[in-house]
């Protein structure tokens, strides 16, 4: 007699993804699908895809989705949520999208206290376009546009802490920073994502779930080394935990 303990949720489609081996998006797409499945939200949810590696996230999820111009996902989400307040509306954005070009939309959507769930996938670079510096690139990190390592002395700035920046805003009800570098942390991230949806259903305001995410290809590391790099270099700069 066979009893399935862990298996792919139906909401996650069967097709092969375009993501690199060991990419954090793969893990996160599963967690989002599972959360929506467990909370029975498939018929209620509307997801907004970013511009970045996950630009075609909607090809992998079996629910209503919307594209957004680079950085504008939270503005699009605002338009959808205000028009259809009963739907559960979430954005899924990378660090270039959310923290660079979209920083005004991110700040003001959070500040207005829109009842939205924002999943922020932080891989410290612009992955899709070949690994340029992003707002969250750490000091010393080599990227396509910081070939000698990010250096504030060259006017390249410091890593932006979006979670800490949004937490003080009154419209923000929850800010967590997590990662997927161990099974325990994957399970914790799952709980945080669920909580982000539940907060929206309970109309508590804006929820941010920042996830430090591995990017083997751009980081020039194996999938295992990428997880290690999160542990050794990213966690120190971006502390995990419930920030609000």
């Amino acid at each position, binding site marked *: 007699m*066979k009893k*399935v303990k*862990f298996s792919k949720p139906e909401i996650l489609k069967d097709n092969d993804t375009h993501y690199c081996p060991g990419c954090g998006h793969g893990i996160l797409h599963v967690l989002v699908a599972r959360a929506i499945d467990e909370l029975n939200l498939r018929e209620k949810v509307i997801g907004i895809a970013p511009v970045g590696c996950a630009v075609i996230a909607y090809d992998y999820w079996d629910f209503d989705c919307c594209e957004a111009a680079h950085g504008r996902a939270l503005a699009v989400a605002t338009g959808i949520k205000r028009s259809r307040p009963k739907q559960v509306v979430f954005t899924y954005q990378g660090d270039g999208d959310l923290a660079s070009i979209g920083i005004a939309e991110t700040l003001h959507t959070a500040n207005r206290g829109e009842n939205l769930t924002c999943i922020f996938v932080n891989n410290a670079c612009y992955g899709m376009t070949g690994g340029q510096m992003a707002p969250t690139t750490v000091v010393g990190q080599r990227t396509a546009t910081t070939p000698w390592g990010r250096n504030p002395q060259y006017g390249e700035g410091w890593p932006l802490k979006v979670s800490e920046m949004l937490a003080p805003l009154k419209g923000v009800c929850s800010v967590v920073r997590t990662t997927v570098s161990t099974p325990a942390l994957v399970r914790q991230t799952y709980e945080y994502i669920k909580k982000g949806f539940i907060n929206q259903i309970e109309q508590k305001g804006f929820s941010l779930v920042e996830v430090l995410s591995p990017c083997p290809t751009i980081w020039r590391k194996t999938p295992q080394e990428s997880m290690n790099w999160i542990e050794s270099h990213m966690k120190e700069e971006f502390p995990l935990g419930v920030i609000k």
Partner: protein
Amino acid sequence: MSKSQTKLKHKVMIKKDKCKGCGLCIVYCPVKHLEFSAKLNKKGVKFAKEKKTNQCIGCGFCFDMCPECCIEVYEEK
């Protein structure tokens, strides 16, 4: 712990042609139950598979870490 639970076996089923060979399941398995295959799958990579020694404890860590969600873990009596 009841008598029936001591007889419980766990198995991992991996869809080999969906596997991209990232190796995360192999690394994070606490009992080293998984390994890379010798042969290549349709993607042209060495895919993850169960070892013949069958040590699986059904923890689901491989499922958690798999970016392709091509792993199923189940218990068998």
